[in-house]
């Protein structure tokens, strides 16, 4: 093996029923480097990682790791861990029922002299491990009581606490906010300095250019190339990933904004003193027809909670909603759906996908529920709509009957989005719709939002990426500490303006 190289993968093949997920993929990782693994949704990044860590068994190819003379095949994640590979998988893979500390120390708990699990030491060590990623929480509480972002940080803390040569991070930043990302990067730099090699998957290009040394690009399960970071400017990287150039978006909002004169439109939704104890303090909000309204604030500021109350995903305890000039007396989401609302939830795995149903069924289910149980949509129509939306959203799936759980993370997200677009709602709430979605599709979704709004759909858009929101929304609601603290009109707002508003100075 070459000097300084920790890991080589050569000619890796992986086949799933109906798809060749990896086709002769090569990957080389050097000591002390951060290596980005890039590609569109469904390019095969997660699969390559899972082949490496023994979750999947490869059909062909060889893996070599420093310090082991023979070709390595991990048959289970347990083996991979023993061989010095520590991983944070794309979907958070921790156990919600056990405490944070236990999650960090699963299968490697500290023991006392007589061999018993040393709870005191475990909790203390867990606190230490979390401190490294800047987290200070009660480690004895069950993990499930914490937000997705915190769970993600715990997963990271766990991975770096394991002694390893190779650290794999599969889209760790998709549910983190800027300050948390910064902390993560500090940690990564420290590890790098101590010689750990890191594989980093993300769809945020600026993050790649901030921490990575090298990039390997995959496309359609095939190896496109390996580049040093300096050799490959952004535009070219995107071109390599997509196989073609990407449109420029900067003009998007401006042109459409001129066309849309929102102020004169009538209001579609008006909420007064809507609130729920422990979730969000009572707030008022008025949304105009054809408007794109953004919700911004830090994680846990109540943006998702606000949206959930409007849709009745959580039942409000007080206040009224007037929707389309009549009282929306919703008791369950179905009531809101029937009136023409749609809601894409933040937590894809828990609340979005119905894992064991096919792509078609996942796409059709909201429309079916809206139509009613006794009016089954005819198969011909289902197939037609499915085909249409698979094409429109460029969903990468072996067939419409493939189970949604077999799709890549980003493609699952597209299916969930499609599910709501099919119902052709008048008011669409999107909570982090672009999470885990690749650059190409992300711009397409932004375009889609603007276009839908132009056609008269009202959209509420929540995203941690301020830039993305500024490009698409007419107006921003700012939240802080579970309270709506103000609104900003989007004429030439800068990212900085929004940041100060979020920080509390509207």
């Amino acid at each position: 093996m070459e000097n300084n190289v920790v890991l080589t993968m050569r000619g890796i093949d992986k086949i799933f029923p109906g798809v060749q997920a990896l086709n002769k993929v090569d990957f080389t990782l050097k000591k002390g480097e951060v290596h980005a693994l890039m590609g569109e949704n469904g390019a095969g990044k997660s699969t390559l990682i899972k082949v490496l860590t023994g979750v999947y068994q490869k059909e062909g190819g060889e893996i070599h790791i420093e310090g082991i003379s023979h070709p390595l095949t991990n048959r289970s994640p347990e083996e991979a861990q023993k061989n010095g590979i520590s991983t944070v998988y794309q979907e958070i893979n921790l156990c919600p029922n056990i405490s944070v500390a236990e999650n960090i120390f699963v299968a490697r708990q500290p023991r006392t002299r007589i061999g018993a699990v040393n709870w005191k030491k475990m909790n203390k060590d867990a606190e230490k491990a979390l401190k490294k990623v800047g987290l200070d929480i009660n480690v004895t509480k069950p993990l499930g009581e914490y937000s997705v972002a915190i769970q993600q940080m715990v997963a990271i803390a766990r991975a770096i606490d394991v002694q390893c040569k190779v650290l794999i991070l599969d889209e760790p930043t998709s549910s983190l906010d800027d300050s948390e990302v910064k902390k993560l990067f500090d940690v990564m730099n420290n590890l790098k300095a101590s010689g750990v090699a890191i594989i980093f998957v993300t769809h945020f290009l600026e993050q790649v250019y901030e921490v990575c040394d090298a990039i390997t690009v995959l496309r359609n399960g095939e190896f496109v190339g390996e580049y040093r970071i300096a050799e490959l400017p952004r535009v070219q990287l995107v071109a390599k990933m997509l196989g073609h150039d990407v449109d420029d978006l900067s003009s998007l909002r401006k042109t459409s904004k001129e066309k849309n004169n929102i102020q004169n439109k009538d209001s579609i939704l008006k909420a007064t003193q809507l609130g729920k104890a422990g979730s969000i303090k009572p707030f008022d909000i008025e949304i105009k027809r054809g408007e794109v309204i953004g919700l911004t604030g830090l994680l846990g500021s109540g943006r998702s909670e606000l949206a959930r109350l409007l849709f009745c995903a959580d039942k409000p305890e007080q206040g009224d909603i007037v929707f389309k000039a009549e009282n929306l007396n919703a008791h369950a989401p179905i009531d809101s759906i029937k009136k023409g609302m749609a809601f894409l939830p933040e937590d894809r795995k828990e609340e979005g996908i119905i894992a064991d149903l096919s792509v078609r069924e996942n796409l059709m289910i909201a429309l079916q529920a809206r139509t009613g149980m006794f009016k089954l949509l005819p198969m011909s129509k289902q197939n037609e709509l499915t085909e249409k939306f698979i094409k429109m959203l460029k969903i990468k799936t072996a067939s419409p009957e493939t189970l949604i759980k077999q799709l890549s993370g980003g493609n699952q997200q597209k299916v969930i989005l499609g599910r709501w677009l099919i119902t052709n709602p008048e008011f669409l709430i999107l909570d982090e719709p672009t999470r885990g979605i690749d650059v190409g599709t992300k711009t397409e979704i932004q375009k889609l939002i603007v276009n839908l709004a132009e056609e008269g759909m009202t959209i509420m858009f929540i995203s941690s990426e301020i830039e993305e929101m500024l490009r698409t929304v007419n107006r921003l609601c700012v939240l802080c500490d579970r309270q709506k603290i103000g609104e900003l009109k989007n004429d030439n707002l800068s990212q900085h303006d929004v940041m100060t508003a979020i920080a509390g100075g509207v």
Partner: protein
Amino acid sequence: MKITTWFKTKISGNNFLLFITIAMFILMYIAGLVIYSDQGFGNMQTLMNMLMDNAGLIIAAAGMTIVIITGGIDISIGSVIGLVCMMLAFMMEKMGMGAGASIAIVLIFGIIFGFVQGWLISYLKIQPFIVTLAGMFFCRGLTAMISVNQIAITTNKVFLGMANKNIKIPFGAIVNKRGIKLYPFIHPSVVIALITLIVVWYILKYTKFGRSVFALGGSEQSALLMGLNVRRTKLFAYVLNGFLAALAGFVFCLNTTSGFVEQARGFEMEAIASAVIGGTLLTGGVGTAIGSFFGVLIKAIIETYIRCNGTLSSWWNKIVLSALLCFFIVLQSVFASMRSKHNS
């Protein structure tokens, strides 16, 4: 106000049900003291009888708790207990074997049986309900194959000695009509049951295996990805459970000193119910051995109520038992939902 904040901080999500169960047990005990005071409900011996009558169930429920926490279930244990009783009776009465050897054989049988079931469940990934359902049929059939007639253990002195030995407890004595001080007593079965309970509690709380059981019950997929050997852990859980079922059978046999085909029919359901009442979730990942112990006590106290009410016909007995069970689990569910509302 103070109480609710204390509630919130002390009782974390998962052991809330356990807390309710213990509180309800105490309440029911006090209620029993008031209502049935004239029937000696307050005697220490009443409590001891509850333990003696349910020693086998305490052990079985502890084993059941382990497999339920892994997300599985074992409905074979009633039949295993029946078979173990029959084996013991047959070996000691018909084959003239010694008590020690017989007991060792049934315990080893339990381990092997647990291993086979566990292997099918963890390595062939067959659903636990089905494997153990087959296990249930298998053991019941085997019991009948050994003997369709009841075999009573009458000759083995060692075994009968173990069964009938009274261990006096040096407190809680009552004075009877003739002025003699009567100390409450227990049989050795209770000692075995309580020791087992403590061991299981320790295993679940303080061993790597125990903690792995919780992790894989929470999410098998995640546990696997975190580098846990899911298969081995599961296999071991069923082996342990098989052993505990056989041990429960032995203790059960100490109480009945006989073997017959229909013995311990439906016992698995009692064990499952005890575990669930004690706060174990059938979806896996949540539960404690102590909780299941209190689950058994709840059942025992309901039975004591019924007994205090005089003799009921067997069907009335069942109806009342299930009505009380129903009342209890509904109340528990109401508490739980009240709390989850309070929290969110």
